[in-house]
């Protein structure tokens, strides 16, 4: 699982790790979300779907793309009986719930990723986790989903034990509902409650599937990708703080766009035009080094680095080169021997 804030290059890192693993002989599937055009071209996945396809030029490499707009709608429908499934499919609140429920996209992605792992067709499945509301969404989604479907929200609306459908037509005695009626008009709350009741019938199936997904997550190796910038670092810290409680401790933090330490105050007598550039990048390199070191000492993290290359990777060779020897990626955690 490749986790991290948006915009730090998670997809590139996932692809690089997968290419190198495939070249070491492991049958590898890389699962990406919304890759940049050039990366998609390198992976030959411009028209990929969630159906894994073998890479034409790389014998052990498969690629698939998660549908970032997929929702748990399909998952919930899968676990409902036909009549309820039909009501859910046509329910006006379903899309709203999918949009609002913070874990819904993450749940669909986690479900898909777990399916690949359970297929046991690959030695390694590298999952580029989708950008989310933040932090550990992707990892907590199964539990949150079961909680939503399980009627917790419904209990809050009704303020008590789960009612039958008929109860919802008679809520004169409940001040909470009276207020909701006053604010929103009388039938909205009832329509939402009916929807949640239907959803609740899928609970057993969703909870069972959720436990399976969680099992896959707990066994996963997690790499947290960041750049040495304050905002993504803040997110990386949250992963190190929060993940041990919900999945497992990350196995490494990977600093993307790293500059080599010999760039700090290089020796030499430079002409003024060169000196200007050297001073800027020397300061940037020093800052990066400081960030990496403070992270590793604070969290005891294994630190790996991916170089800041002049051009974005456009071929499998470019990708493999990003994680060449010396990058610090703990390959043994992935069961890969190079």
């Amino acid at each position, binding site marked *: 699982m490749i986790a991290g804030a*948006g915009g730090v290059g998670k997809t590139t890192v996932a692809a690089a790790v997968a290419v190198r693993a495939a070249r070491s002989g492991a049958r590898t599937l890389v699962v990406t979300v919304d890759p940049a055009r050039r990366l998609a071209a390198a992976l030959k996945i411009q028209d990929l779907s969630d159906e894994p396809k073998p890479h034409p030029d790389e014998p052990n490499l498969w690629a698939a793309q998660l549908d970032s707009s997929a929702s748990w709608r399909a998952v919930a429908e899968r676990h409902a009986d036909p009549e309820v499934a039909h009501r859910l499919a046509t329910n006006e609140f379903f899309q709203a719930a999918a949009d609002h429920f913070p874990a819904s996209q993450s749940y669909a992605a986690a479900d898909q990723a777990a399916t690949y792992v359970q297929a046991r067709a690959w030695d390694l499945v590298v999952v580029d986790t989708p950008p989310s509301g933040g932090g550990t969404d992707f990892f907590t989604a199964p539990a949150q989903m079961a909680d939503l479907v399980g009627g917790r929200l419904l209990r809050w609306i009704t303020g008590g034990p789960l009612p039958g459908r008929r109860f919802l037509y008679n809520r004169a005695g409940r001040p909470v509902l009276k207020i909701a009626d006053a604010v929103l008009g009388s039938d909205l709350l009832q329509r939402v409650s009916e929807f949640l009741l239907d959803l609740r019938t899928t609970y057993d199936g969703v909870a069972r599937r959720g436990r399976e997904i969680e099992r896959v997550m707990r066994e996963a190796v997690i790499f947290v990708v960041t750049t040495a910038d304050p905002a993504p670092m803040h997110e990386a810290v949250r992963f190190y703080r929060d993940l041990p409680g919900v999945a497992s401790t990350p196995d490494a933090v990977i600093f993307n766009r790293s500059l080599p330490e010999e*760039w700090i105050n290089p020796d030499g007598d430079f002409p003024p035009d060169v000196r200007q550039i050297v001073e800027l*990048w020397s300061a940037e390199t020093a800052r990066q080094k400081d960030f990496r070191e403070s992270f590793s000492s604070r969290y005891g993290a294994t630190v790996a680095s991916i170089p800041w290359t002049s051009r974005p990777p456009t071929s499998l060779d470019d990708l493999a080169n990003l994680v060449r020897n010396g990058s610090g990626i703990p390959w043994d955690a992935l069961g890969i021997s190079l």
Partner: protein
Amino acid sequence: MLDDRLVIVSGKGGTGKSAVAAGLALVAQRHGLRVLAAEMDASGGLSAHLSTSELAFKPRQVLPGLHAMRVVRSEALLEYLSLQLRIPGIGRFGGGVARSFDALSTAAPAIREIITIGKLLWEVKQDRWDMVVLDAPPTGQLGSYLRAPRSITELVPTGRIREQAEWMAGTLVDPEITRLVLVTLPEELPTSETMETIGWLEVEQITPPPLVLVNRVLPPLTVAKRPQGVAGEMVELHSAQLTEQKTWLETLPGDLTLPYLFGLFTPGEVSAHLSDLLEHLD
């Protein structure tokens, strides 16, 4: 920008929108305006860039004239129910009402967003502030907030909340009040996301046209002769990045650019520096 009453700062994740929001708030504060800076999630980006501790729902003074807050939905809702709707006895079962609404808002379109955006627009209406600066959700989630007032008017046929939603939609689209700033980077994915956002904003007309701020633009330095060794590598990276950035700068409307800040360590340093730069842009 100092005349704007509400400045909404959004952008793809990782483009530096919290730093820009903090920088703008600091510029306004230096000009003697009474400023409220607000964030909408618990990521702590805004508070870090204002060099202050975690923010709460109640605005707290960060600098003379500058207050900061975080919009907490449950508290915004309780405040709304008691102040705006003047529902009697709300304190007695307030917590229950807030939880029920939260539950309801999971499934009902626009309820969740209207509560948050409503609180901010209510602050804009107050005489207490000359400017409200919002560190808004990233562009991927921005639409559901900006669309919420209109969605509510479609969902709720009559009554007070509908009137308020109409007022909110009118405020958001009023160029005398609202300015939307999109922060982006001269890179492939931030550029395409920004262009998409500009596209749907133009179609939907829910805010005035956005101001695009391109962050982390490298200085156009070149050398007469490429040096050997490490310095040569630095020059090569700089020149390759300049070429790459040029492609995306040509695609973006690029109303304004902010330079790459080399070697700055803390979020506070970054926003202080940005505020100096923004001051001169204005």
